[in-house]
């Protein structure tokens, strides 16, 4: 591999380090050869992504993350004829969890893989155009496998996050690095795996590391250069910044956090954000407060386990909704908040929905965070009886682990859902045609107890012990269709192993989801009837996407078992221990006989 010696270097002015200097990662390497919007993927295209099925420019298939496609060439009548078009192996010995979603643009498919790798593939043939493998230090500390959840496109760049907590922007055509920005120090427990989101020329990203006492925050950088524009901490008490200047503290110091604990308060934004173009608000989910042992941090611990709405122009919090105040069960509130509209009393309501790790499906007013409804999407919730619609707070059932005090271990309790959640990272989908959300859920509980804990930089910061138990013998995973207006489950599909992959739905009245057993499956969006499945060779925990090329509809999904379940699943291990590892990307289309065309030639 040889590089172009003409690359111009845009550098910082030389610093007066005598004889010694440290490597930085701030600086556009190649002088930008385009101006924003002049070439490649524009803001207007990104805003309109959900309406242009010939490309997929965003993870979530639109800034709102509805994961709905207007395509209906593949539909309930013909999905039975879906067959593989091609498959690409990620190769190497690095076969771990593949949680990515493909992006499709101008003849190329961009797909990320385990260990911070990314490939550009030929949309027609699946042939590799280029690949990039990030050189990771040995000391990275991702909590839940070495996964990546996809990239973002802007201009002629493809941007993705790496496990050593960097953002890397590469040229879409060559795979050469254009900029590389360090988010934070991996040695302090930071990592990054969520897909960045592009909004108004900004690349929006979060941080991972809630098990290590990091400080959660949302960052907005100039997508062309990687330069920081604003940062908004999601732990109360920390200062935000806009264009390098102080931009107000998030909340108020010590209002909901005692003493000094907010300084290592977690609330990691490890799944990133969605965006409401009509509200100009980013909707960012936040993780558990640190440490897990809540006995040491009385108070609500804002803005942990919340949805935080941030004005994308000024980086200030417009509203927040905390689904699990003073979390004691590792109920991260990171899940995707998906904007949608529904009619109530003859009036269109600007709403948003989120299926939370704590087992409740929330519908909020996306303009102000006011709660409309909260209904369970799992069969068992021990920690709260319901959510008070007036106060917006859960009504608890005295299900918290006991305070260990100075003892080795406090009183253990059984709680459901387990800390892996009624739903974990895997995104749900919304179909405006059926008016239903399709929620990938799991039925499990846990024994959990607390232990004394002190913060140590870079070390796990839990103060809790736990073990997971499945609730039922015949299934753990479920795909559930929720009516957001009633909170009722309309249909469900049960799966033996816990589901861990994203959901997609289409105007063809289909819902797609992968299973750890290795299948990509298609369901009738109205009835839940399973219509099609294909065995990919390893567990599917990726996010399916669909697009159109040359008049035909395609469906793509990554296959490769891994993620948090095999690492943290406790008793679930026996249901998943025999799943083969893998690492590949599959593309499907409707079968069309080649015989007629061949005869013409």
């Amino acid at each position, binding site marked *: *591999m*040889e*590089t172009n*010696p003409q*690359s111009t*270097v845009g*550098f*910082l002015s*030389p*610093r*007066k*380090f*005598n*004889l*010694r*200097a*440290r*490597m*930085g*990662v*701030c*600086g556009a*390497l190649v002088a930008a050869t385009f101006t924003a919007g002049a070439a490649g993927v524009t803001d207007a295209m990104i805003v309109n992504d959900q309406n242009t099925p010939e490309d997929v420019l965003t993870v979530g298939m639109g800034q709102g993350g509805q994961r709905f496609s207007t395509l209906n060439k593949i539909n309930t009548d013909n999905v039975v004829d879906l067959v593989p078009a091609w498959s690409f192996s990620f190769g*190497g*010995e*690095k076969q771990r969890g593949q949680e990515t979603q493909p992006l499709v643009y101008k003849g190329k498919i961009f797909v990320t893989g385990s260990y911070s790798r990314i490939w550009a593939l030929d949309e027609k043939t699946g042939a590799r155009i280029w690949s990039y*493998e*990030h*050189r990771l*230090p*040995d*000391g990275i500390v991702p909590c839940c496998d070495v996964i990546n959840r996809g990239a973002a496109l802007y201009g002629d760049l493809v941007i993705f996050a790496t496990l050593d907590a960097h953002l*890397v*922007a590469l040229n879409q055509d060559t795979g*050469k*690095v*254009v*900029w*590389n920005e360090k988010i934070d120090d991996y040695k302090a427990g930071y990592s990054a795996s969520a897909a960045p989101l592009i909004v108004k020329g900004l690349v929006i990203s979060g941080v991972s590391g809630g098990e290590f006492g990091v400080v959660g925050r949302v960052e907005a950088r100039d997508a062309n250069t990687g330069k920081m524009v604003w940062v908004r901490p999601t732990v109360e008490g920390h200062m935000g910044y806009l264009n390098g200047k102080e931009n107000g503290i998030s909340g108020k110091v010590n209002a909901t956090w005692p003493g000094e604990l907010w300084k290592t308060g977690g609330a990691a934004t490890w799944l990133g954000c969605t965006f409401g173009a009509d509200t100009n608000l980013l909707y960012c989910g936040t993780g558990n407060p640190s440490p897990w042992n809540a006995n040491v941090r009385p108070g609500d611990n804002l803005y942990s386990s919340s949805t935080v709405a941030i004005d994308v122009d000024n980086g200030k919090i417009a509203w927040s909704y905390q689904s699990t105040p003073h979390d004691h069960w590792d109920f991260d509130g990171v899940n995707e908040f998906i904007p949608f509209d529904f009619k109530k009393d003859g009036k269109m309501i600007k709403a948003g929905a989120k299926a939370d790790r704590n087992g409740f499906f929330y519908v909020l007013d996306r303009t102000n965070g006011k709660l409309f409804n909260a209904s369970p999407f799992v069969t068992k919730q021990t920690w709260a009886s319901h959510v008070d619609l007036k106060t917006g707070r859960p009504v608890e059932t005295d299900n918290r682990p006991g305070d260990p005090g100075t003892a080795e271990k406090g009183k253990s309790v059984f709680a459901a859902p387990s800390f892996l959640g009624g739903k974990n990272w895997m995104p749900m989908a919304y179909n405006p045609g059926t008016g239903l959300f399709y929620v990938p859920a799991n039925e499990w509980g846990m024994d959990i107890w607390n232990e004394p804990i002190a913060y140590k930089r870079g070390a796990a910061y839990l103060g809790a012990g736990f073990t997971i138990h499945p609730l039922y013998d015949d299934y753990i995973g479920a795909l559930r269709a929720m009516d957001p207006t009633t909170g009722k489950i309309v249909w469900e599909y049960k799966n033996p192993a816990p589901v861990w992959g994203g959901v997609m739905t289409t105007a063809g009245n289909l819902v797609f989801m992968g299973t750890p057993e290795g299948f990509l499956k298609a369901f009738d969006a109205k009835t839940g009837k399973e219509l099609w499945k294909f065995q990919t060779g390893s567990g599917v925990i990726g996010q399916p996407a669909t697009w159109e090329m040359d008049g035909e509809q395609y469906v793509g999904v990554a296959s490769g078992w891994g993620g948090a379940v095999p690492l943290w699943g406790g008793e679930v291990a026996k249901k998943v221990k025999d799943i083969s590892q893998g690492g590949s990307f599959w593309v499907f289309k409707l079968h069309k006989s080649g015989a007629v065309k061949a005869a013409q030639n």
Partner: protein
Amino acid sequence: MFRSRTRFRAYSLAASCLLLGVSSSALAGDAPSTIDPLNSPSWQYVQARYFDGQKLIFDDRIKVLAPTAAEDPLDVPIMVTSDGIADVEEVVVIADLNPIQKILAYQPKRASPDISFRFKVEQSTPVRAAMRTKDGVWHLGGTWLSAAGGGCTTPSGGSSGLWQGHLGEVNARIWPREDKNQRLRLRVIHPMDTGLAKGVPVFYIDQITLRDDSGAELATLQPFEPISENPVLSFDLKNVGPVHVEGHDIQGNTFTATIQP
């Protein structure tokens, strides 16, 4: 006994290297237009790949100084000298039988074309320096390096992961020389992974720029994968005073340093 075994391995590797050259070079079939004094089995491919259609002469003034046998295939010291050839615009150093042949490209702007560095060698190979003068002619000199090999496909790690906490740290020193010249020796912490060691992605410094105190370029260098871990480079600069160093690797990590005389 040991020696003969080593040579055997070297020749079998050479054969596979030739095949690689044939498949990747459309011009491989052309007859060599110049007789190679090093009698390299790969000369015609090297010529076609790097000097196709360009004027080229073998020039005794250009010397590549290497140890008679490479003690450590991961770290072979090389010195390139030009005996005062004037108007050199670009220097390219190539190891014919390395899986990645090009070691570096160097543009001495206000500097001597002479340069010293350390590199990784895969097997015994000709190492040649080519200097392009202002008139467009490439002047070539070189030597055979005897090596047990394996240097390009072994993970770097002589410093056992030093880079993970010290990536891009620069150590350097300037020695004043006569006639308003100075020598700069530079070391940068970097693993310089070739991408050929199993499970280790390619990761190397691909640009270094030296500037004087006014910001004007003294020299630019493009190292490639074969440059040894934690590169040590020596330059003869035609200036006096502080030198500003800037560089980056292929993954966008940048480094800067200012060296005081």
